């Protein structure tokens, strides 16, 4: 799996993409692969204030619950409500249709501090021993 070069990545396996003045957030291919079939997603309300590294929701598979953490600080401007009926989008297209929220960007430096695609791929390889 290719990790999009224009995204940045966290140690908790979220990605963030800058889209104009906003940021889009999701979980990575590796995260959904570890979880297995995603069956439930819990997302914050629009307007919620997220703090970088703060928990803001959960993604659940049949077997496991995975808390999701904000890659950066900002306010939630949109949530992917299509995931309520179709959480499997997270498995099928984690870096695209399976996005979780869009948010404002409080401080662009927080994004620059995250891992690049190459760094993240190395991080995953080291974590899985592969």
């Amino acid at each position: 799996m290719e990790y999009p070069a224009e995204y940045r990545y966290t140690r908790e396996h979220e990605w963030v993409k800058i889209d104009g003045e906003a940021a889009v957030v999701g979980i990575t291919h590796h995260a959904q692969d570890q979880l297995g079939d995603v069956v439930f997603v819990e997302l914050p309300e629009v307007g919620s204030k997220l703090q970088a590294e703060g928990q803001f929701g959960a993604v659940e598979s049949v077997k496991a619950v995975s808390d999701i953490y904000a890659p950066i600080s900002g306010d939630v401007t949109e949530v992917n409500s299509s995931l309520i009926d179709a959480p499997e989008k997270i498995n099928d297209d984690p870096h695209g249709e399976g996005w979780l929220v869009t948010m404002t960007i409080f401080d662009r430096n927080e994004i620059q501090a995250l891992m690049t695609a190459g760094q993240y791929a190395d991080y995953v390889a080291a974590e899985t021993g592969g």
Partner: protein
Amino acid sequence: MHREAGARMVGFGGWDMPVYYAGIVAEHKAVRSGVGLFDVSHMGEIEIRGPQSVDLIDSLCSNRAASLLNGQVQYSGLLNRQGGFVDDLLVHRISPDHYLLCVNAANQEGDFAWIRDNNEFEAELDFASERYAQLAIQGPSALAVASRLTDVDLAGMRYYWFAHGDFAGVPAMVARTGYTGEDGFEVYIPPAAAEHAWLAILRAGSGESIRPCGLGARNTLRLEAAMSLYGHEIDAEVTPYEAGLGWIVKLAKPAFLGREVLARQEAEGVDRRIVGFEMRGRGIARDGYRVLVDGQAAGRVTSASPAPHLGRNIGLCMLPVEFCSAGRSIDIEIRGRAVAAQIVRLPFYRRKRS
């Protein structure tokens, strides 16, 4: 071998076990509608030989082994003096002076020590786990698939009976038992032959699209069927009556460990018991979550998960009996929020018998 089939492995009781291959949902559905194959070689085996084997078993277990015939299997509880479970197990009567107990992997050493230390009979114990691998073929198509590999008359074998015979060219004990709520067989074979038998079963079931299944599906299948799991619904503190397993208690037989407590519970009733619930609000209950009744903490979830076949979020929990009536509204505390659920009758799923 399992990794070659795409398995995700996890450490379990000293074993490296597959959690899933293709995915828990697909595996679960395959077992409900077709057939799945599980490697359950982690399960423990203890053999008991000697003229008083049955007396030893009946002195320590809640069910009545003396009522078994040759080739018959019985679900039972190995109990402590308080009537709690040392383990739950399957008792196989091979002959009047030879029994095989199939026990939980994590408890096998403790079970063996418990039986040995309480053995006042002419019965010899044999820790046999290293001599057996175990493969479970489960699902409505299990009979068709397994029959291709053996001369044992599987179609004529009733549920909870077993026979010895050749299976995929290997000497085996084949039992019509399982932990999925479906028809199926558990095949006990020498470990050296396990890989050969595994591949032979997959080949024999290719026409039925047999799926290798992991521990994840094993858990969701047994939960839908409301079968107990040691360390969850049952443990050393929980009695069969509290677990809803009163049918494995035979108070009429001679004395057995834990009988006094059980006789009192039978007469007076229990204070708490395991009940099933379904989520009504949006959320998935998980093992260990708090159960709220009228806003107050009343118990814990013992096992819970999405139920792939039923398409609902289900669970088992231990509650004071006054809250246990079917239909009662409860809440499950999920990440700090109370989410609505309702107590329902068990099992969640029961197969249609042909």
